[in-house]
């Protein structure tokens, strides 16, 4: 039985067990992970998983069940369990599948799958991790240790079927290679990391370049000191700027809005960011990490500008939150096999601006260049923001020395409005991505 047949049969079984409507997700993936550390093989891991999830609507009540037991008996139990659960939840007039008119009818081949990743022999990626780690270890005598280099890949398939008659599926693959070197100076250790990721093997950067970049990033952290407490401009490198996009995506996601848990509630059509900022969500980019032909409810996909020159133009909505807000779904239902559908971005990025990253740093007389953020100090209800930061101190337009054990704080409302410069260095390595961003003023706490 194909996965698509299985999804269809689950929907039929749910209707047979008393559901008014139902939809099913069946997913399978095969994974490979290998790692070396200090030039020796450290691990080889292989994975295989197949799961089925079913959402049922019994009257206006809903429930979800999922299982790894894909035997006929297991699937039958799944349908009955889901319907039994739904009889215990409360009716909700907004519950239900999307409108048939919003479903994807046909879709392009988005080139998401690489057959070369299907039959990968562990010996090959082990060689790449060896090369990548060696490039880092050999970069400088101060690279004294390593947490290793890892390659991981997965190939899989997702299928979706619903009682609206929709049935479809797509294959996808993913591969990544990472290196984590450790450097020592005067008895103090620092680590950093670099990685390459792509849906296709041929899209990965060379192992040697990944190792060399990991070493460069680690070495520049040696001798880090603390910075004085003060207000100053903060430049986010592309990696740390992408974390700001994650907060933005969370604040414009339907469930956060109808629950009144977002600082961007009621701000549609308003200027929420500096006019230099345009944010796009594009699920249809060929071979991109967050691309998909339809969302977790079968809804059609299209490119949307979420923030256009600072103005919030759309939320990210699944069908439930759309109905709650009196809006149309935008095709952003995100869904694990057994989870309640939520809403989230696909390929979500800040459009590149006119400035070279060097020019952005050069524009700062005294401030912070952030390369890593840690911790959870973001309150999306209020926008209050306070996180641990690592980076380089900028003096007279130049990266002067590394800094650590500092925090940066502000409010996301102000931070988005204070984005003064947008870099031209966007790369869509991960589904959330940004070029370098400069925020005019935040509070740095250190000494």
């Amino acid at each position: 039985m194909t996965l698509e047949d299985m999804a269809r049969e689950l929907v039929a079984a749910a209707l047979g067990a008393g559901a008014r409507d139902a939809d099913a997700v069946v997913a399978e993936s095969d994974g490979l992970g290998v790692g070396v550390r200090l030039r020796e093989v450290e691990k080889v891991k292989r994975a295989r998983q197949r799961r089925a999830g079913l959402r049922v609507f019994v009257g206006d009540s809903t429930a979800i069940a999922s299982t790894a037991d894909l035997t006929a008996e297991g699937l039958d139990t799944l349908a009955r369990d889901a319907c039994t659960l739904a009889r215990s939840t409360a009716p909700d007039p907004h519950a239900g599948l999307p409108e048939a008119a919003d479903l994807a009818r046909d879709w392009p081949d988005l080139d998401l799958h690489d057959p070369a990743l299907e039959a990968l022999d562990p010996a090959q990626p082990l060689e790449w991790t060896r090369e990548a780690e060696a490039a880092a270890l050999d970069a400088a005598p101060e690279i004294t240790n390593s947490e290793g280099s890892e390659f991981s890949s997965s190939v899989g398939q997702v299928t979706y079927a619903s009682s609206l008659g929709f049935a479809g599926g797509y294959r996808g693959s993913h591969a990544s290679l990472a290196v984590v070197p450790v450097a020592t100076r005067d008895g103090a250790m620092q680590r950093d990391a670099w990685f390459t990721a792509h849906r296709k093997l041929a899209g990965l950067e060379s192992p040697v370049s990944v190792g060399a970049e990991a070493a460069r990033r680690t070495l520049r952290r040696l001798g880090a000191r603390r910075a004085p407490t003060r207000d100053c401009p903060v430049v986010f490198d592309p990696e740390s700027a992408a974390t700001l996009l994650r907060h933005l995506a969370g604040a414009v996601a339907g469930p956060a809005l109808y629950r009144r848990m977002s600082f961007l509630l009621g701000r549609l059509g308003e200027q929420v960011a500096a006019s230099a900022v345009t944010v796009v969500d594009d699920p249809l980019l060929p071979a991109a990490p967050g691309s998909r032909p339809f969302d977790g409810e079968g809804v059609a996909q299209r490119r949307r500008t979420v923030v256009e020159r600072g103005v919030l133009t759309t939320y990210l909505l699944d069908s439930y939150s759309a109905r709650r807000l009196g809006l149309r779904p935008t095709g952003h239902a995100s869904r694990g096999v057994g989870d309640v559908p939520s809403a989230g971005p696909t390929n979500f990025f800040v459009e590149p601006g006119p400035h070279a990253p060097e020019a952005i740093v050069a524009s700062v007389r005294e401030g912070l260049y952030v390369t890593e953020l840690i911790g959870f100090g973001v309150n999306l209800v209020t926008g209050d923001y306070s996180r641990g930061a690592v980076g380089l101190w900028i003096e007279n337009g130049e990266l002067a020395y590394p800094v650590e054990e500092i925090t940066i704080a502000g409010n996301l409302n102000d931070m988005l409005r204070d984005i003064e410069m947008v870099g031209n260095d966007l790369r869509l390595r991960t589904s959330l991505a940004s070029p370098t961003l400069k925020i005019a003023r935040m509070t740095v706490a250190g000494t």
Partner: protein
Amino acid sequence: MRRPTGQQRRLAVWRLRRAFATLVTMEVAGVERFFCERFGLTNAGLERVLGSALERHADYADLYFEFRVIQTASLEEGVVKHATRTLDQGVGVRVLAGARSGYAYSDEVSLERLEIAAGTARLIAEERGGTEALTAPATGRPRHDLYRLARPPVDTPLAEQTALLLRLDAVARAVDPAISNVLVGIGIEHRVVLMMTSGGVVVGDVRPLVRLNVTCIAERDGVRQQGTYGGGGRFAFGTLTDGRAERFAREAARQALVNLDAVDAPAGPMTVVLGPGWPGILLHEAIGHGLEGDFNRKRVSAFTDRIGTRVASELCTVVDDGTLPGRRGSLNVDDEGTPTGRTVLIERGILRGYLQDRLNATLMGMPLTGNGRRESFAHLPMPRMTNTFMLAGEEAPEDIIRSVDRGLYAVSFGGGQVDITNGRFVFSASEAYLIEGGKVGAPVKGATLIGNGPDVLTRITRVGSDLQLDEGIGTCGKDGQSVPVGVGLPTVRIDGLTVGGTQA
């Protein structure tokens, strides 16, 4: 659906007959029989798989079977909107050879799949030249029975759960008309695991886990804030309904209301007083991760080579204890079959020990501590914390606050994170107050606190007599794996921690 009801809900040690050493108690067999029946496996077949995993130069092999049901129910906007039920099952085969791990897992469980997995896992052994096989020193620890229950909490009728959800919604809203939305979630887990090792140990464990979370949104004069509270553990669902759940709901509402009045937090170094209980997340981030065996074996931890040295003030004794009955972070055995224990990490300021799994204990020649944990059958074990806390001191908590002229009093936290290698850690306050002239003053907005692990506990100048463990809400993430943990702390005063607010 077949459920493991009527099984032995206790630690089971069973005998592998042929080639393996024997450890026998015969009341056993429940867990092991459950898996054999569910997947049509036989003892002889499993022995063959272990034998095949050990071919060539492997030191050790194990099988990890898992069956898990998770039931959730959630309420928002006054109605029970969602219920989910998830069934997971699978098996992982691991082979160790020196510092190498080979691992293969599948959620399709059959002898054929197991043979294929064993073939993959032993690839790492075949890569290695012949050296002496290493073995971990045996542990002399007793076995425990920390969470045996008459009825698995996952079998709690949904009607009982939805009734509690509705009651908590009412309790939270009754606190104040400013409470505009209440979200409550119940999660109940029933996990059955079976571990079979090439050392001849066969151990089963049935692990219940109950969790309840309440989030309240408060709105007043155009200001919106949230408060979150919750708890749980490895206990019966009824343990929540003895008034504890209502207390969680009132606490979440209270925290949301307090935050409505919060002023901007200060920025810069200052004296910080941490309240008892969940602020123990300080220990988890500042020292706990840095004392995990893998980072120290690899010499990438800020605590590498520091056993026997002073890393905290004399007032500080910190332990990791997986044997506390019913606690979220507790386990009868870790995920390698080693009984959990109580490990002293810091004794009166001196670093005493690391947390170990089998691989790292073996390579470091140190004893197993029962901290080899994994998120599921789909993951390799790693050294992880269980319940990590500081022992009580002698001061009254009020006196500690009174001793501070100007500082921050933080009583609740969101999450934390640490960079193991340079020791820098953060944890983010979600309820905190200014201290002025020895008195608790205005509430401040959430702020991240940042410090340096090997340094921060040396700045502890007062330790309260009020040790509390957290309510049972912690989940620790490491290397992509999440496991439930606990923390605990008495009230402590830290002289000089950087507060990441906006008032420079």
